[in-house]
């Protein structure tokens, strides 16, 4: 098997008795874009800082390019980091920023100038060596920060939520740019974020982290369509979360009954006992809408409800529907056809979904999301 660029073996870190990273083991393939996705406080920053070398793990070891990093300080690791607020050196020009690492390696000034120039060209900032940092736009700063790290040709590039400080429009743009840069350079990227959209769009593999552990590690598609835990189902992508009891389990289908009396069917994920507390998830785009019940396939359970509010967001528009009998709220995506463009608040509407595409988990004792 090919040598992974990054491998963690039972890496753990505690702060004053609190577990920040709980004996994590994983490996990242060469040249891949790997994201660690999790809510704030899940331990992802601690993990990243252990990979970079700013923190030492309490136990376990990190291997980069097959080498143990246990006694290697950050300035000797073949790893570079793009910081959350970029941490560009304001006292240096763009060229000096990009050349800093090379000059630390003792390269002759001529070589440095040449490599800095070539790198700036690759990040589409040719000839900006003499600009000051404060003359750059947010996106340009981002590119300088990446160039400053990549010019050192690290085995691994760590990115600590670098898009967090940008406004939405620029963030969308930088997402695409980051993915292209990664594909161009072929460097292994390890990216941490709390933004599931960033993780899904950018990554080859995503690890969903919660309370110091990986809940699930897989491709963005597998996380989205086949979440292994209620936490992942709730955290990755939008989802309607319905708590209830498994009133009936037949094969892979579970009948879920909520306290308010709503009954629905969902696919069983993992072990579910009849009568046990369960959590069901229905994605907004899984449900189909119709003006009345007859408009829906009779093979599926059908519901009726009132439109409680309209959530217009262009292509991501949705309605909030309150089911008539149980008053359960459902977040349902509006189809792109424009068929429901005239739907109004207060209108009665029918909806249903394929039970195979709804998921049911045994409710965890405390599956905080």
């Amino acid at each position: 098997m090919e040598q992974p660029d990054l491998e963690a073996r039972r890496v753990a870190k505690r702060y004053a008795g609190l577990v920040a990273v709980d004996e994590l083991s994983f490996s990242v393939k060469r040249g891949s874009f790997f994201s660690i996705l999790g809510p704030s406080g899940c331990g992802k920053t601690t993990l990243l800082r252990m990979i970079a070398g700013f923190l030492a793990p309490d136990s376990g070891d990190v291997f980069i390019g097959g080498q143990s990093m246990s006694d290697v300080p950050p300035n000797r690791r073949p790893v570079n980091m793009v910081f959350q607020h970029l941490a560009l050196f304001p006292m240096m020009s763009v060229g000096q920023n990009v050349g800093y690492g090379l000059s630390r390696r003792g390269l002759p000034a001529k070589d440095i100038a040449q490599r800095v120039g070539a790198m700036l060209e690759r990040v589409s900032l040719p000839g900006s060596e003499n600009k000051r940092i404060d003359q750059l736009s947010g996106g340009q700063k981002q590119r300088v920060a990446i160039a400053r790290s990549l010019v050192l040709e690290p085995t691994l590039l760590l990115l600590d939520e670098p898009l967090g400080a940008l406004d939405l429009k620029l963030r969308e743009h930088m997402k695409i740019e980051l993915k292209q840069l990664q594909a161009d350079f072929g460097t292994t990227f390890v990216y941490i974020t709390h933004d599931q959209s960033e993780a899904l769009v950018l990554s080859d593999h995503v690890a969903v982290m919660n309370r110091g552990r990986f809940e699930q590690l897989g491709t963005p598609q597998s996380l989205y369509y086949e979440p292994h835990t209620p936490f992942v189902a709730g955290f990755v992508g939008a989802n309607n979360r319905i708590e209830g009891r498994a009133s009936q389990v037949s094969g892979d289908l579970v009948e879920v009954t909520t306290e308010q009396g709503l009954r629905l069917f969902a696919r069983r994920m993992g072990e579910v006992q009849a009568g046990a507390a369960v959590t069901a998830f229905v994605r907004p785009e899984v449900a189909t809408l119709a003006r009345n019940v007859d408009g829906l396939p009779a093979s599926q359970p059908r519901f009726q409800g009132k439109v409680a509010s309209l959530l217009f967001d262009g292509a991501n528009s949705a309605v909030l529907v309150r089911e008539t009998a149980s008053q359960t709220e459902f977040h349902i995506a509006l189809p792109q056809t424009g068929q429901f463009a005239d739907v109004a608040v207060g209108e009665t509407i029918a909806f249903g979904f394929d039970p195979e595409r709804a998921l049911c988990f045994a409710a965890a004792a405390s599956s905080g999301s």
Partner: protein
Amino acid sequence: MTHKRLLFGLLLAPALIWLLGLIVLPHVDLAILSLRARVAPGEYAPSLRQYQTFIEEPLYWNTFVRTAVMSILATAITLLLAFPIAWTIAKIARGRARSLMFIMCLIPFWVSETVRTLGWMILLRESGVLPAVLVQLGITEAPIEMLYRDATIMVGLVYTSMLFMVVPLIGALDSLDDTLIEAAYDLGGNGWSILWRIIVPHAAPGIVAGCIVVFMLTLGNYLTPTLLGGKNSLWFTEQIYTQFITRFNWEQGAAFGFLLLVLSSAIVWVGLKLSGQHFGDVMRRS
């Protein structure tokens, strides 16, 4: 509009009066004094004699250069000692420890400068504490006189100046983003390169501000060199004092005062040029 201007003028008035009354007027008077000579009792004529005396008399020259060199040295030593202290307070200490350390820097200034300097004399004089300790420890056979040496003057000057260096340095270092240091370390930097390429350039305005203040205070200090250095301290302010008070030669004293002003301005200017800083920036940042 006129109201606003009036208010602005009133607010500015004390500063202007202070500037005019206590700085500009006396200096104009000093300038006039320094440019005249007594030709007969009670009779004066414009002359450059005072300045000529300064140039022709090596004692004055030597004192002048010595004062400047010692002041620069004292400023440099103060900077070297204050930097780690400021770094500890700004970057390492947290919460109570931080306030406590800052107060420790401040405490010596609750005592008047005279008493503070006399404290040094009690410690260092021949029959004082430190020589006695050295004898007790068997390091010296007989008590040695530690006063009236250049090194002693230096200790006193650095001690007096410390706070004025620490305060602007804390301000400058406090505003340095820690992730810049981490980033430099991550990119392969080591302690020295980070100090020279990241920390010092960032703190430069604070360093220069501290140096200007300490240098001015040291150059113009009278008490510390006189008490710790005794008769032979040869500090330029002493010459001025002697001319005015002992010799009653106000003309000569005024000329010396003016020369000191020119000297300090020139050295500060050279310092700013060498460090590539601008006076306005330095004063704004400190």
